[in-house]
């Protein structure tokens, strides 16, 4: 999990490797591990139900699910404080839930219901919660990166020690706004953690076909920004690494670019069969599945039996089902909502 050999010394990830052993103790904590396991199962089951609901035409529009990337989502979330901010792209259902938005409100939002977290104004791509400091799913690739810099600016301006986590897809790193924002964040020492969810495909295009560098953390080199790479298929490694990075950002106020290696099992959106990837490649990644990895660890260390894990998964399944059932019952927005919130008073 450490930063790769060719990462420069100044990488915080590299600096943090000494702390890793001390941190490891946390990963022996059985109850923590079991709860994380259950949440990952819940996230996966949630997104499966979302897919099912879409394919049975319970809702429409675009729908991008996060299956396979649960380890990153939870590993990061568990490293944050509630007052930290988060902003993301269009694949953010479970990130929103991780940040605190109840899953039923996310499901209701997908169904365009009045009680969705954006009252049916946002949909799959635009989950928001001021209360939980989740500043949105955003639909313009890379557009959220300057916003994150702005939040970082505001944190410094108000002399707070929160940070902002900004999720970015791998292909968004070729967008001009990404570079503009990273330059400002590095120049002005803004407390931003930019996380590239590097699942290696921008929609159907292999990132290698559109990008001149071999590793996306190298984008940080242009701005002399701290950076690192993490195996985001493993939640324990991810959590430990990100915890150290976050602590460092709080201390130094220096922004950080994290190249988080992960994989999405499903297509870019529901209508994408993912033909640009071979079955072998998919099988190879799915063998490293974050849920399976943690399950194996738990079994190997005699912290849980197969049956106990199955029971946890079942709980996740039930939770996801309950979220959907709740959303089914919710009212659609009143017509006069069309005219509300165009302008603030």
């Amino acid at each position, binding site marked *: 999990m450490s930063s790769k050999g060719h990462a420069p010394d100044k990488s915080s990830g590299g600096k943090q490797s000494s702390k890793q052993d001390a941190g490891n103790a946390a990963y022996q904590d059985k109850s923590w591990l079991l709860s994380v396991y259950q949440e990952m199962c819940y996230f*996966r*089951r949630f997104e*499966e*139900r979302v*897919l*099912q*609901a*879409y*394919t*049975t*035409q*319970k*809702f*429409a529009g675009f729908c991008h699910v996060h299956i396979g990337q649960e380890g990153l989502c939870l590993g990061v979330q568990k490293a944050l404080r509630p007052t930290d901010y988060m902003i993301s792209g269009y694949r953010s259902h479970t990130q929103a839930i991780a940040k605190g938005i109840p899953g039923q409100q996310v499901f209701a939002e997908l*169904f365009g219901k009045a009680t969705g977290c954006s009252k049916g104004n946002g949909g799959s791509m635009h989950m928001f919660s001021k209360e939980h400091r989740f500043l949105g799913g955003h639909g313009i690739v890379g557009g959220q990166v300057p916003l994150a810099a702005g939040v970082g600016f505001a944190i410094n301006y108000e002399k707070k020690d929160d940070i902002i986590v900004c999720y970015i897809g791998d292909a968004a790193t070729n967008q001009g706004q990404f570079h503009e924002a990273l330059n400002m964040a590095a120049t002005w020492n803004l407390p931003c953690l930019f996380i590239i969810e590097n699942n290696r495909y921008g929609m159907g295009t292999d990132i290698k076909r559109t990008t001149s560098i071999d590793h996306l953390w190298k984008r940080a080199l242009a701005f002399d920004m701290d950076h690192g790479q993490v195996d985001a298929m493993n939640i324990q490694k991810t959590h430990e690494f990100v915890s150290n990075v976050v602590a460092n950002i709080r201390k130094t106020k220096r922004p950080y670019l994290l190249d988080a290696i992960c994989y999405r099992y499903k*297509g870019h959106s*529901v*209508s*994408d*069969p993912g*033909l640009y990837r071979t079955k072998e490649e998919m099988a190879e990644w799915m063998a490293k599945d974050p849920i399976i990895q943690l399950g194996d660890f738990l079994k190997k260390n005699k912290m849980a039996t197969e049956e106990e894990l199955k029971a946890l998964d079942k709980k996740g*399944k039930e939770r996801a089902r309950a979220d959907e059932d709740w959303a*089914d*019952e*919710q*009212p*659609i927005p*009143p*017509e*006069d909502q069309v005219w509300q919130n165009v302008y603030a008073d």
Partner: protein
Amino acid sequence: MAQLILMPKLSDTMEEGAVANWLKKEGEEIDEGQDLVEIETDKATMAFASSAEGVVLKILLEPHKSAPLNAPMCVIGKKGESYNLDELIAKATAGAKPADKKPAPAAAAKAPAAASAAASASSQAQPVATGRVKASPLAKKIAADKGINIATVTGSGPSGRVVAKDLEGAAAGSSMSRTVRTGEDRVIPNSMMRKTIAKRLLAGKNDAPHFYLTVSADMSRMNDWRVRLNKEAEKTGVKVSVNDLVILSVAKALAQHPGINASWQGESIIEYGNVHVAMAVALPTGLVTPVIRHTDQLNIRDIAKLSRELAGKAKDGKLSNEDYAGGTFTISNLGMFGIEQFTAIINPPQAAILAVGATIPTPGVDAKGQVVVQPRMKMTMSCDHRVIDGVMGAQFLQTLVGFLEEPLNML
């Protein structure tokens, strides 16, 4: 319980699909979320995961046969479970679109109402018909207001367009509007009104053979009610007059006697479908009769408010044509001037008018046979004998007196 799996929508444009390959055979176990079948959509062939867990009990869709969205594909349930396929299909089709799309009822009802409002608005907004004459919108409006036929005006604008200044000339040529504009204000409004009064009253008296019925009513109860109503006037802001009470009672009585609320039309008699009571208002310049519409459906405060409003408008000379039009029965009241009794001339094309006198303390005999002083009001109804016979008129007045003597009877 067995669950039916339906053809899913796997692309935003997909309308039908075909099974490319079943990944599970009948009898095989499957978990929720596990791939069940490969489906050819209009865009691609995609694996589709099961939304149920258990055993594939029955496959209903052969590979490579296309089927519409929501067509049954297979049944999943517990091993050996029995199920009724028809029931499953009926249930699934009923709930094929389970997303709850019930709109807020108010919102749904709003749309057609708004549409019809728009439609009626547009039908009202008919432009002034001017044939093929080219004229600016303002010119058309001025012409309509002044009653000038715009086709007779020569346009000075591009391609002969009639514009506002062309109509200034045309208007100047019309003697009437000149008088109206610059004439002696002392003469014109008075004579027009008197002319109208004269014409109408003459027609009313000449055409309609009048006969007269006089009654008197004990107004004690009405007076009590009026005192009560006016005690609340501080709160409601509406003061009720005797005349308002008479209007209300007449309207309610007319609703029961449609033969009085009528008009002679030569070949036929119209019994009006609505009760629109006109009230005579005396002005220094003459008499006007503004109309309270649907009088029988109003409550006493509405009537008081409207009668005051109309009287005010009449005094300010602000009554519009609409305020005059459509009366079906008229009440003329000179009671406030101390007139005990009088007869009025019918306001054509109505069939009757009620002349109301002052309420005067009068010795009378009460229910117990005692001689007492009662506040009594005399009324004389003039009837058009072509429409109303004596008994009809008498029955109407009986009802009216009943209402005036016991307001509760109106309820």
